[in-house]
């Protein structure tokens, strides 16, 4: 082959290449999906809860120093169809609720490539579903939500699904919050699901849909009869054998604490 033939051949080859690649583009241009932001806000008495700020608890001061949970299989529901928003994420209000503004903003769990349409429900798991809960942090990179050693409890072979921690004025001397409470719950049996139905969530082109879900912190600390926990009696719940039905009760409390 002489050079002239070669160059003609190359030219032709590149034209075919270009034209085939052009053919694909129209597909990609059609927008069939869009994004959503699900914003979680922690509230106390309906107002944004600021971590470490003193609030009243049955006439005594108390604080919340830590509030975190795992959310899994967050989906939008349309009849029998489900659109995945997020498989697993970790919501840590320590990243937001240290200021009043941050508390008002809350923590966003985002999802992309949601098929366009109007959805009538939203569903998520509270905790780590059992298949993922069989893993442990060494199975994930440290920037993965399941990669944090601090959120795994060796003795249970389980992630800690949610944590609520804080201090309170045990002796009512009004100055010091000398006592503390800690509620850590894990184990498959304490995994819960939350479903919201009768919604109208519009996933539209060029628009990020917004959903706000509130968590009323006081509702996390209630006996089955609705009374607030007596911290002296229920101070350190840790899914241990001695904790009786409290881990399950606290998991149920979380489900009831969410509202739209």
């Amino acid at each position, binding site marked *: 082959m002489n050079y002239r033939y070669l160059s003609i051949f190359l030219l032709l080859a590149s034209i075919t290449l270009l034209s085939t690649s052009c053919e694909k583009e129209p597909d990609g241009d059609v927008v069939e999906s869009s994004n959503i932001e699900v914003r979680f806000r922690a509230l106390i008495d309906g107002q944004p809860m600021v971590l*470490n700020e003193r609030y009243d608890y049955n006439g005594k001061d108390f604080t919340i120093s*830590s509030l975190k949970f795992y959310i899994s299989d967050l989906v939008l529901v349309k009849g029998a169809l489900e659109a995945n928003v997020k498989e697993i994420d970790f919501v840590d209000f320590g990243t937001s609720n240290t200021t009043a503004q941050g508390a008002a903003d809350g923590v966003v769990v985002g999802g992309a490539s949601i098929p366009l349409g109007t959805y009538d429900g939203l569903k998520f798991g509270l905790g780590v579903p059992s298949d993922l809960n069989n893993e442990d942090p060494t199975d994930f990179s440290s920037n993965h939500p399941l990669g944090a050693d601090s959120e795994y409890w060796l003795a249970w072979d389980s992630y800690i699904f949610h944590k609520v921690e804080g201090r309170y004025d045990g002796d009512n001397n009004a100055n010091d919050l000398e006592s503390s409470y800690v509620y850590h719950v894990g184990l498959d049996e304490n995994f819960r699901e939350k479903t919201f139905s009768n919604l109208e969530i519009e996933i539209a082109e060029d628009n990020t849909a917004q959903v706000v879900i509130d968590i009323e912190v006081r509702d996390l600390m209630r006996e089955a009869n609705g009374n607030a926990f007596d911290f002296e009696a229920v101070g350190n719940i*840790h899914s241990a*054998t001695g904790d009786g039905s409290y881990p399950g009760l606290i998991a149920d409390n979380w489900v009831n604490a969410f509202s739209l």
Partner: protein
Amino acid sequence: MSRVQLHIIGCLLLGLLLVSSCRKDKDNGDLTDIPYDVPEPYNLDIPEGFPDLVANSDNPLTEPGVQLGRRLFYDPILSADGTMSCSSCHKREKGFADDVPTSLGIDGIPGTRHAMSLLNVGFFENGLNWDGSIATLEEQAIEPVINPVELHDDWGNVEEKLRNHPDYPERFRAAFGISNKSEITKELATKAIAQFEKIIVSGGNSRFDRALRGEIFFTDSEFNGYDMFFDISPDFPDAECGHCHTGPLLTTNDYFNNGLDGVDDLNNFEDIGRGAVTDYIFDNGKFRAPSLRNIALTAPYMHDGRFQTLEEVLDHYDSGGHYAENLDPLILNLGLTEEQKQDIINLLHSFTDTTYLENPDLTNPF
């Protein structure tokens, strides 16, 4: 002039030029006459179950890089008066920590914090130093050289010493491919030091590791300590340790107030620790929970080295610590018996793995 003559003159001139350029290059710090090969990667053995090293694609581990860093780490050339090196405070046989509460720098002035262990430092990605004030090992190594209570030199001076040194320029070329001595900078020096620090790895051969792998049995006392440390069974009190010191490195690397100092106002901590980094008052008095691997080798303990022994550490935790409004909710009066405290101390001893002392790449090369 004949063609031949011209040729000869031409050659002579060229030769002269070459010679003079050579001489000039010597003066200019040229290193290109030293052969250079792309550096061989350093093969690091990471114990099973450990995370990956904190990634830095900008500074991969290489054989000559690590060896250069090792020299710099042990070489007092980094201090103003040539008396101290990194290893003066980070002592190899002490788990690369210091054995005094707060180390003295070259001017005999003590710092305010304990020189922490560098074992496994390449895995810590939630900030370095007790307060997390620095993100990477590369950045961290800048500071001790100029800190008035440490090596108290200045980098311009150190760079000059390294450039004029009979051995270092060649090593910098091998590690980083520089072609001129003038390219020896603090950035490259600290990259090399960071590479060395990343190979300071220890784990996998402690009694603790071997017991977890089922190769040996814990003693009864160690086992009881393990139970309390990680709250395994209701038969023993929960010592809460595992909340903050867990995972393969026996730390979460998070920041907590573990109750060392009582204050009625969070502004009154002598050392506000994490609070100075985040500017959040409830972080005052918080420090990074250190790895407890090899903890028996790295006394004294805590950010200011206040406790000489693990017995004192256990007494501290057992007491529930001192009150401050941000005292961690998990620091509680534990109600441990003397025997139970000893059980936990025995567990802490099972975290010791001295095989790092046999690693020839970690020893003083001088």
